[in-house]
């Protein structure tokens, strides 16, 4: 929040340090739960209360309200960054209507363009789907380690590793039939990402190095190593000096679903992967152990589970999914590795997983939503000149409000009985 001209976008009632004592009205004793055992907190309430709590306390309502709050704050950003609005601010006191109507029309125009760009027609829907494919995958790459109490910030590096390896197999291996080459390239991407997720996993399991730090460092390493690779003759496109690789062979390209639209068959891969991951997390022993390790590592260890194994497997699986995302971007969309092709997909995955609250269904829904925001944002930038960066601001605000349900409830004066914290990840000690 750096904006010098907009301190008023904070809807938080500014709490003086002293006023911020624990006796807020919406905080109840029932929420004083043990951090390790997130038990349902409204078990003792009557059926009517439980119903009310289930509606007002659920993440769905909070999520929608978070979305609304984020849009309002985002509108302030749009309005304040617009020259015309700032000018009418100059005589705000004389004619407040001017400033307000200018602000309204500017932000309504931008949001309108955003909405039309996301769902306004077949082309727009295809763009939304295309953007959602990698987001769902990187979202799952964050959601899975979250189960084990780990925070995978390394999605970016894992996307790059997967994309580079998949792309390399795509252009360096020649003469294979489509049915062999494409699966091989996809598999290579998955393995590349998995290897890049395995590294922080084994480092954490063996030495206790925190994954937040190691994955961030690996992200930066991946960026520079890719730059290096793209400067070598083995990778670089002949006759080009900028960082761009040779073109993937036609036999390794993920084909498009509809002629003329960019949506590719990576969509099917995502659906299959999402179902498989749902089964793995919710129905398999692996998912149970992963969750157990996340909820209470000591108890899991006492029950004979290997926390180290879960740490390594969790991050490796996450890396595999992010690697698939990278592979799908290269094989389905770009067909060439470029410097910075990942474009923040790994970081977007964090916001997707947090909005999806770590569940598979939620992550898929959040991935589609943020895909729509991204596709709509691009079209908004073209139509109204409002920078695409606004989408990042919106995403951050949405997550901010979702991560602090108590804040949303305070803004909208909802009395809640749900858990007060949006606690997902663990601290340094995990």
């Amino acid at each position: 929040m750096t904006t010098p001209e907009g301190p008023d976008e904070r809807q938080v009632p500014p709490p003086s340090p002293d006023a911020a004592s624990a006796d807020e009205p919406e905080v109840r004793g029932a929420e004083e739960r043990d951090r390790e055992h997130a038990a349902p907190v409204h078990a003792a309430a009557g059926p009517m209360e439980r119903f009310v709590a289930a509606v007002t306390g659920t993440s769905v309502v909070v999520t929608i309200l978070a979305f609304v709050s984020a849009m309002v704050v985002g509108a302030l950003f749009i309005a304040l960054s617009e020259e015309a609005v700032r000018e009418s601010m100059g005589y705000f006191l004389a004619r407040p209507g001017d400033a307000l109507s200018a602000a309204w029309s500017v932000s309504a125009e931008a949001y309108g363009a955003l909405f039309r760009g996301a769902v306004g027609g077949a082309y727009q829907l295809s763009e939304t789907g295309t953007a959602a494919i990698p987001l769902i995958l990187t979202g799952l790459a964050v959601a899975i380690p979250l189960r084990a109490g780990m925070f995978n910030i390394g999605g970016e590096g894992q996307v790059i590793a997967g994309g580079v390896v998949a792309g390399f197999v795509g252009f360096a291996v020649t003469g294979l039939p489509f049915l062999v080459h494409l699966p091989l390239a996809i598999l290579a991407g998955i393995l590349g990402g998995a290897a890049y997720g395995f590294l922080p996993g084994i480092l954490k399991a063996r030495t206790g190095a925190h994954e937040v730090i190691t994955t961030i460092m690996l992200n930066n390493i991946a960026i520079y190593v890719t730059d290096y690779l793209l400067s070598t003759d083995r990778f670089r496109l002949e006759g080009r000096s900028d960082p761009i690789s040779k073109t993937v062979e036609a036999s390794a390209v993920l084909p498009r679903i509809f002629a003329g639209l960019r949506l590719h068959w990576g969509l099917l891969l995502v659906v299959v992967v999402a179902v498989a991951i749902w089964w793995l997390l919710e129905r398999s022993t692996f998912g149970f152990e992963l969750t157990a390790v996340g909820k209470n590592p000591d108890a899991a260890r006492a029950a004979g589970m290997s926390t180290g194994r879960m740490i390594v497997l969790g991050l490796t699986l996450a890396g595999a999914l992010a690697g698939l995302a990278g592979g799908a971007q290269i094989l389905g969309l770009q067909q060439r590795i470029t410097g910075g092709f990942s474009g923040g997909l790994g970081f977007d995955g964090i916001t997707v997983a947090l909005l999806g609250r770590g569940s598979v269904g939620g992550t898929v829904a959040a991935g589609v939503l943020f895909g729509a925001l991204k596709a709509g944002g691009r079209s908004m930038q073209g139509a109204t000149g409002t920078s695409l960066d606004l989408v990042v601001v919106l995403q951050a605000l949405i997550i901010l409000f979702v991560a602090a349900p108590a804040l949303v409830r305070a803004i909208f004066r909802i009395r809640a009985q749900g858990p007060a914290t949006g606690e997902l990840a663990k601290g340094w000690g995990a």
Partner: protein
Amino acid sequence: MTTATPPDLDRRNRRFGIFALVLAAIAGAVFATGTAGVATTFQLNDVFGEPAYATLPAVVVPVAPTALFLALVIAGVGLYQAVRGFGDRATIVISVLLGLFVLAFLVWAARGQQLQVLALLRGTMRAAVPLALGALSGVLCERAGVINIAIEGQFLAAAFTAALVSSATGSPWLGLVGGILAGGLVGALLAVLSIRYRADQIVVGVVLIVLATGVTSFLTSQLLVPNPGLNAPDRFGAVTVPVLGDIPLIGPLLFRHSVTVYLMLLAVVVVQIALFRTRWGLRLRAVGEHPKAADTVGIRVLATRYRAVILGGMVAGIGGAYFTLDAAGQFSREMSGGRGFIALAAMLVGRYSPAGALGAALIFGFADALSTSLQILNVGIPSTLLLTAPYVVTILVVAGLVGRLRMPAADGQPYVKE
């Protein structure tokens, strides 16, 4: 690490010892061979700045014998470590051996050329400024029991605001104040969300980074790009401390810097003393270790946490202002380039102490400066790969030397009064 059981200690001894022997083998096999008769010159004088009163002679060393000697020392100490072990001092010993290894590497990398040692060390000091200040921010917050992962966001917010204010007013000092306030604002957001609304602190930290990235990038394209005059801040110039600045080597190294370097050193000293020698620091640490006990004796837990987190944000704000008012001279998107996370690593490596954070920041800063020096020397390693050095070093240090930490007991846990 201090309470390792004997079998653990044995294994650790062996691991460290074998690690040292590998270092020695590399030094002996790579650095000491094929370089017979070649010498390396270490230039100790400031060849770019004003001349000092006295100049030091350049140190010329033959490459092969020096590298071989260093390899033998590393091997000898490593062997002792593997067989007998240095016990609690093993970490320090390994750090010294790593230092010797780096020296052997430098002797080899600059063979037949001149290495600007002073420029390298000055670069280390400058690179350490944001890292140490960011790590201090982390120390203040986490000692009080709030995890601050948002350092990167505080850097970006402060760097942007400092550039804007300095450009608009023409005063880098006002820019610095703006940066400090912006860092404090991000700190205040972190405080409100994690203390009052008890949101998950790591999540909030990451979200604040994304938010700061988004807002600064958005405002850069909407505001700074159309108005370049708003992104041309007046920068801090170098200030030479009288007398001290004229001492050879020490003078240019410590006393011929811009204000941000002095502020960083001052902040480390002040926070170190305040945390461990004052009542304020004792209370702050009590709140981070055992908030209930602190509450019982009348310390206001939440107020203490608010103050610590906002103060931490302001300290990181100085580090953020360094990017636009000192290092670069204009704001560009995501210009902090992950240094907020390296600062976080510096805090962990420094074990939540300001002095330790400075030491770690200097190590990471050295890796940063070294990659620049090596690009100038043209050692045959591609520059893009050299740029990974700070990150590789961070991983090695965090994995090898830090291990499992004793963090403040209540770190990351919201406090609810009964």
